[in-house]
């Protein structure tokens, strides 16, 4: 029997990085095939190749569907070949009705005039296919819960005659009940011969539904295994099974007093009333230590630190103490005044004004320090900028270089430099080394060490386990908004953290 899908020797390079290295991926007809791997292992890139987002020619290798070689020059080609992908971020137009969304781009129309009766009738049929019988096709999709929105997405995919359905982290935002419904729908599809590729970090789900499992690591295929012949522990070790080959210059912590104490802290979802993105978390951070926060994508790590920093739109409840005094931080201004600083995970979106020069970006969070009576002192700004460039080893022509032209590593150093000028007591680093080269990483690690020596408390959120293990003194693991485990550095291993983060029983 020919495979429904065969991806042969796929190699995809980005400038400086090999995202996929000779990956081979075979999916049998009518099976549910799980694709597993750490953040950044290459799963999403592989699916983007498959869905035509990266067209033929931008990668090496071959794609065969039902034994026939296909060349996709765009998403449309892939759709015609029967491939439908449902992304983590749902792609529905929230103000349009279910029916309008289902037929977006292929409206049932004659001479441009839509035949609404036909649209509604067909919509009902497709909705029934995914078990959505209790909503009218006229309902605006924005009023549906996230689980039902996903069902609409699946119905939309089916209506395009999808033979291969790809679900990318479909359950990240779902409640347990909604997950159960989704898994039932997929089992029903399997009976009818729909092939499904299921990408998920949550191994318990993977094992409850998948027939085969393929593991990717660092852009390579590690292997494909029948689900019956393998278990969660084995998959985790395959996913993380790499040596700690990067150097981490960790120094011993001399933890001082507790600077930050967070007790029974919950954060509500800004849109879905009643949903908690952070659920009753308690922890404390001491002077002079690096406190790591681990968790899978969507576990709530970023939401937690953004909320503590007063910059998350959802409401929060619980106790936050800084230096033993309860504080109620409502906005970023206040957070900075209390001695907090946050280097966000997306430096281009949240960290930098790309069109401004280095010195203006550096002083942005501490402008009053460079002004008297509201008038800036350009000399002091330049002097301080030169000092930051020297201390952080930012490679740039001068302090007047526009930050948009710098490399990722140097941009990250500018963001870090901006916050160091505020002299923080608590420095929160969210993915501090994402997308930057090894040399710059190492320099940032050294800088972190220098800061804890000076008594700063660092909270580091990272998806890179080696980095967390290599630098942190304590690591808290979050899964689905809850604190599921905490390890001291010497007890933590990649396996134990992954087990806890994927919902297994951890330390």
């Amino acid at each position, binding site marked *: 029997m020919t495979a429904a899908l065969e991806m042969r020797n796929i190699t995809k390079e980005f400038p400086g990085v090999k995202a996929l290295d000779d990956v081979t991926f075979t999916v049998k007809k009518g099976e549910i095939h799980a694709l597993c791997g750490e953040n950044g292992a290459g799963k999403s890139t592989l699916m983007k190749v498959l869905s035509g987002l990266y067209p033929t020619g931008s990668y090496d290798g071959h794609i065969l569907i039902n034994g026939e070689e296909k060349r996709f020059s765009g998403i449309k080609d892939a759709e015609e070949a029967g491939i439908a992908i449902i992304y983590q971020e749902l792609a529905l137009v929230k103000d349009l009705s279910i029916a309008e969304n289902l037929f977006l781009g292929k409206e049932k129309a004659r001479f441009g005039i839509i035949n609404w009766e036909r649209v509604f009738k067909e919509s009902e049929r497709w909705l029934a296919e995914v078990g959505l019988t209790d909503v009218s096709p006229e309902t605006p999709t924005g009023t549906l819960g996230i689980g039902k929105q996903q069902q609409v997405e699946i119905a939309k995919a089916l209506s395009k005659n999808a033979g291969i359905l790809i679900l990318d982290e479909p359950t990240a935002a779902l409640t347990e009940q909604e997950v159960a419904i989704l898994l039932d729908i997929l089992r029903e599809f399997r009976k009818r011969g729909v092939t499904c590729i299921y990408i998920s970090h949550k191994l318990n789900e993977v094992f409850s539904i998948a027939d085969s499992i393929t593991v990717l690591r660092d852009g390579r295929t590690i292997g494909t295994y029948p689900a019956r012949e393998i278990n969660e522990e084995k998959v985790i070790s395959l996913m993380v099974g790499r040596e700690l080959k990067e150097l981490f210059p960790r120094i011993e912590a001399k933890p001082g007093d507790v600077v930050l104490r967070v007790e029974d802290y919950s954060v509500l979802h800004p849109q879905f009333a009643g949903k908690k993105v952070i659920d009753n978390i308690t922890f404390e951070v001491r002077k002079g230590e690096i406190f790591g926060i681990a968790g899978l994508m969507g576990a709530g790590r970023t939401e937690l630190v953004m909320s503590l920093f007063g910059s998350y739109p959802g409401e929060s409840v619980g106790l936050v103490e800084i230096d033993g005094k309860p504080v109620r931080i409502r906005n970023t201004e206040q957070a900075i005044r209390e001695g907090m600083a946050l280097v966000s995970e997306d430096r281009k979106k*949240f960290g930098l*004004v790309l069109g401004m020069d280095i010195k*203006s970006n550096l002083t*942005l*969070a501490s*402008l009053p320090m*460079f002004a008297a009576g*509201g008038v*800036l002192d*350009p000399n002091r700004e330049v002097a301080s900028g030169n000092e930051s460039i020297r201390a952080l080893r930012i490679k740039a022509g001068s302090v007047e270089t526009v930050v948009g032209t710098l490399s990722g590593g140097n941009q990250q150093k500018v963001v870090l430099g901006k916050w160091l000028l505020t002299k923080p007591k608590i420095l929160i680093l969210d993915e501090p080394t994402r997308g930057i080269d090894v040399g710059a990483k190492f320099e940032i690690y050294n800088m972190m060490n220098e800061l804890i020596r000076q008594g700063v408390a660092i909270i580091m959120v990272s998806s890179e386990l080696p980095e967390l293990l290599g630098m942190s003194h304590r690591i808290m693991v979050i899964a689905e908004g809850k604190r599921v485990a905490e390890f001291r550095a010497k007890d933590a291993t990649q396996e134990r953290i992954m087990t806890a983060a994927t919902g297994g029983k951890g330390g």
Partner: protein
Amino acid sequence: MDTVTTKQARRANWFKFDARAYTMIGALLAIWVLFSLLHERFLTATNLSNLFLQMSVTAILAIGMVLVIVAGHIDLSIGSLVGFTGGVAAMLNVWYDWSTIPVIVVTVAIGAAAGLVQGWIIAYKAVPAFIVTLGGMLVFRGLLFGSTGSVTVAPLSPSLKSIGQSYTSDVVGWIFGIAGLLVAAYLVILKRASRRKYGFDVEPLAISLLRMILVGALILGFVAVMNSYKGIPVPFVMVVVLALVFTFISKNTTFGRQVYAIGGNAEAARLSGINIRRKVLLVFVLCNTLAAVAALVLTARLNAATMSAGQNYELDAIAACVIGGTSLVGGSGTIVGALIGALVMGSLDNGMSLMNMESFWQYIVKGGILVLAVYVDIYSRKRKKAQS
């Protein structure tokens, strides 16, 4: 080999001085040359004096508009606000016999209050500026009609009139000119010294000198031409003073820096602890205060408050900013650019009126020039990007 590269580097320096400023000045000169060829009276002292007088209102409005657009917003209400505050000034002066100083104070205060209300709705209630100021445009025009009973209010007292109609004496003009020259020279020297102190490249002395001589010739030539007619129009003196003050605000104050940061990346600005709402509110207060100042100038110049005063002035101001290089996306733009933009718009108005072109042609030409200017800007920026 070495000498060649340094020579090339130096040559690059020659042209580095803001290519777009050159483009704008070049466009302005081209327009002037064209009009002077088409009409012999365009380049006379009388007409140039008129031109600078006429462009003053648009220029004052554009100065305030730059900050609004840089912050990522827009203000459509200022034309009507000019009409309304001008009406109030005329009523107080003509009907109630208020003297000049209280009229000025109250008029400017009304402008500031209008900015406070509009800015508050925009910044704190998150209603888009387009909508709020579109509403303001109708409301202020309505207030003008209602408060004046839709009649022209005239004539003003001589002292209020003088705001828009008087000229500096020859001596005062020369004092302004020479003071301007000395300040400009001092600033260039100061900048060179501080750049050298912090190890930046300093442009060759010859270029600094050349530029200083050019600027000096421009200033003194301007004063000479104006003096050969009646002197520098007082409204234009106000434009220069306001332009200096607002350039200082935009470049040298924390407030100015924060406004540019908000327009450049509001999220990054917010996460850097900048109180975005308060800054945006202040930006609208400044813009609308300047609208009241422009209203005083306009009313005084016309010696009357009319029902149609200020109509479409907001569009002229926006056009001046955009022609002067202010990006409607926010984050970039200069006061000087907006002034040149206002001068371009003013020159087109003046030249076409001089040639007795019918007004429909004037609209079409101005509209075309606006779109062309932005097209050229976007096109050249794309090319620059493709090259780098």
